[in-house]
C-alpha cells in the first residue's frame, strides 16, 4: 500500500486510539484545524474533543499536564507544534518527565509520548528551523526517536506508547510528503535498534531522520562513481544502538556522520566519539562529519541550502575518505 509519511503517522495515532481508551492526543491546533502539519486531520470527527484535545498556547502547561496525566494512568500523546516551541516546555520535559522516576526512586513513572516536528529546509528562517533532537538526546530518562521512513512513521508510535518511560518522537517537517510502501498488515517495530538503510562496502554513512533523503541521493551518486556506501539509519537517538554502527564500520573501515544539528557539541560528535572509542583500530581514515553550518538558519533559499548538509557535501566527504 502506497502512503505518505503524514498518513502513516495519522494511521498510527488512529490505531493506538482505537486500541486503548487511555490514549489521547493533545496540543495546539490538533483538533479543529487538523494539526499544523495536517497529521491529525479527521481524528476529531472520529474521537471527539475529549480525546483530540485542542490546547491553548501554553507549551509548558500542556506538556506538564501530559506528564501529570501519564502519572495518573492515561497514555497521552502530546503534540508540540515544532521543536522550536518545545523550548517553552523544556522545564517540564527535562526537570519533570526525565527526572521523576529517578527522584522518586522508581515509585513514579511517566509513560508519555511527545511528538514534534523538527528541522529546516522550508525557508522558515532561524526561529522555525532548529534541529534540537541532539540536545534532547543528551538527557538520561528520555528515549528519543527519529523516524526517517514511512514504515517507522507508522510503526514507532505503538511501542513508544507501550514504553513505561517518556518517549520523544521527532518528525522532520520535510518528510511529511514523502511516500513509501507499507504492507497491509503492519509488522511490529522496535524502538531500540538502528537499521541498515542500504548495504555497501566502501564507506559507512550514518544519519537519521530528515537527512536520510540527502544521504540516499548521495549514496546513489557515489554508486555511479563506483563507491559502495552503506547507510546506517540511527532511528533511535537515545539510547544509541552502538552495535549496528560498529558492525558497519568494522566492515567498511570508514565513516561519515551526517547530522542536521550544528557540529559543535552535537549528536554527530557523540557518534564519532563512540566509533573512536570502540572501533579505532578498524578505521582506515578519520571519522568525518557533515553537519549544518554554525549559523542560525537563514531565510534566503540559496543561503539555507548552503547551510544544510546537501548531497554534494556528503559525496565530496565520502570521496575524500575513500580516496577516489
Amino acid at each position, binding site marked *: 500500500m502506497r502512503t505518505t509519511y503524514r498518513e502513516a503517522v495519522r494511521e498510527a495515532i488512529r490505531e493506538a486510539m482505537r486500541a486503548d481508551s*487511555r490514549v*489521547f492526543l493533545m496540543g495546539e491546533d490538533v483538533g479543529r484545524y487538523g494539526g499544523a502539519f495536517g497529521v491529525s486531520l479527521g481524528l476529531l470527527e472520529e474521537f471527539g474533543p*475529549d480525546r483530540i484535545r485542542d*490546547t*491553548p498556547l*501554553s507549551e*509548558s*502547561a*500542556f*506538556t*506538564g*499536564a*501530559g*506528564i*501529570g*496525566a*501519564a*502519572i*495518573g*494512568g*492515561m497514555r*497521552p500523546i502530546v503534540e508540540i507544534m515544532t521543536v522550536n516551541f518545545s523550548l517553552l516546555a523544556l*522545564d*517540564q520535559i527535562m*526537570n*519533570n518527565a526525565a527526572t*521523576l*522516576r*529517578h*527522584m*522518586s*526512586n*522508581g*515509585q*513514579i*513513572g511517566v509513560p508519555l509520548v511527545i511528538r514534534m516536528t523538527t528541522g529546516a529546509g522550508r525557508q522558515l528562517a532561524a526561529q522555525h528551523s532548529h534541529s534540537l533532537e541532539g540536545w534532547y538526546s543528551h538527557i*538520561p*530518562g528520555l*528515549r528519543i526517536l527519529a523516524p526517517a521512513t514511512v514504515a517507522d512513521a507508522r510503526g514507532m508510535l505503538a511501542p513508544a506508547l*507501550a*514504553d*513505561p*518511560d517518556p518517549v520523544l518522537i521527532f518528525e522532520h517537517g520535510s518528510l511529511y510528503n514523502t511516500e513509501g510502501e507499507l504492507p497491509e498488515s503492519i509488522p511490529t517495530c522496535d524502538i531500540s535498534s538502528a537499521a541498515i538503510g542500504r548495504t555497501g562496502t566502501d564507506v559507512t554513512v550514518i544519519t537519521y531522520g530528515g537527512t536520510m533523503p540527502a544521504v540516499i541521493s548521495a549514496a546513489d551518486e557515489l554508486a555511479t562513481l563506483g563507491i559502495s556506501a552503506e547507510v546506517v539509519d540511527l532511528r533511535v537517538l537515545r539510547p544509541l544502538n552502538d552495535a549496528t554502527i560498529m558492525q558497519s564500520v568494522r566492515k567498511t573501515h570508514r565513516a561519515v556522520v551526517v547530522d542536521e544539528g550544528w557540529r559543535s557539541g552535537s549528536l554527530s560528535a557523540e557518534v564519532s566519539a563512540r566509533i573512536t572509542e570502540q572501533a579505532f583500530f578498524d578505521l582506515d581514515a578519520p571519522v568525518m562529519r557533515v553537519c549544518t553550518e554554525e549559523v542560525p538558519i537563514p531565510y534566503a533559499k540559496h543561503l539555507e541550502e548552503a547551510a544544510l548538509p546537501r548531497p554534494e557535501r556528503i559525496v565530496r566527504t565520502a570521496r575524500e575518505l575513500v580516496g577516489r
Partner: protein
Amino acid sequence: MNESFELLRRMLLIRRFEERCAELYSSQEIRGFLHLYVGEEAVAVGVMAEFGPEDAIVSTYREHGHALARGVSPDAIMAEMFGKATGCSGGRGGSMHLFDASTRFYGGNAIVAGGLPLAVGLALADRMQGRPVVTACFFGDGAVAEGEFHESMNLAALWRLPVLFCCENNLYAMGTRIERTHAVTELAVRAAGYGMPAEVVDGMDVLAVREVTRKALKRIRSEAGPQFLELQTYRFRAHSMYDPDRYRDKAEIAEWKRRDPIDKLAATLRLPTEDISKLDTEITEVIDAAVAFARTASPENVDSLTRHVYSEVRR
C-alpha cells in the same frame, strides 16, 4: 475537640520535626538545600485535613510539612534527608524531592511553579477516568509570577478540572518582598482573570484554613471547576539554611510570631499545659525514633547508582 487536638498534634509534629532538621543540618548529618516550614504549619495541616486518601498532592521544595500532614512516615522522610536507601525517595531526592506513591504524594518539586502543570494533568487523568477525586497543588507567592502559574490556571479553568490551587503567601520569595515583585499584591485577584473562585484566609488559623478548604472542596466536588486559596502565612525562619535572613525586619518577624498557629489553636482549645507537654513528649519520641531509624539505615548501594533512570519492567 478530638479532631482539633489531632490538628494540634500534626502541627506540633511538623514544628518539632523541622527544628530537629535544623539541628541535624548544623551537625552536618543533613546536607543539600533545606527549606523549613516553621510558622506555616496551619496551612498544610488545615488543607490536608480535608483531603481523602484517593486525592492527590503536588508540592514544592518546602514540603516536609505537606508530606507529614499527608501521612508520609516521619521515618521515611528523615531517612531520605540522611540519603538512605529506606528514605521515601531512596536517597535520590533529598529534602526537596519527597515522594510517596502510596499516599499519592507526587513530590517535592524544586522548580518554582514546576508542579502546577503536573497537578493539572493529574486532575485531567482523574477526570478522564471518572475518578471523583481532587488534586491539591501547593506553591508560594513567588510562583505566581511564573508563566507556568498562569498557563496552568488557564488550562485548569478552561477544562474545569478538579484542582485546588493553594497559594502559600508568606510575603517573600527568597529575600524579595512581594511588593518588589508583584504589580498587584493581592494574589487572589489573579484568579478572577481565569474566572476561578478564590478565597483569602488567615493561614495562621488552622481551623479557618480547614473550613475554607472544606467549602472549596465541596464546590470542586460539585463540578464547579478549580478553586484558588490564598493562605496568608509567614515563615519564622530563613528561606533556607544558606540564608542569613538580612532582608527582614526583626519587628516584623516578632509580630508574626505572636500569631503562632500552634499557640493560637492551643489557646482556642484551652488545653491544660500538662496535656501539651505530654503531647510534646510523645512527638519527641516519634522524632527520636525517626532519627534513630535514619542514622542506622543503610545507604543505597553505589552499584545501583544508575537505577530508576528507565523502568526496570519493560512491557
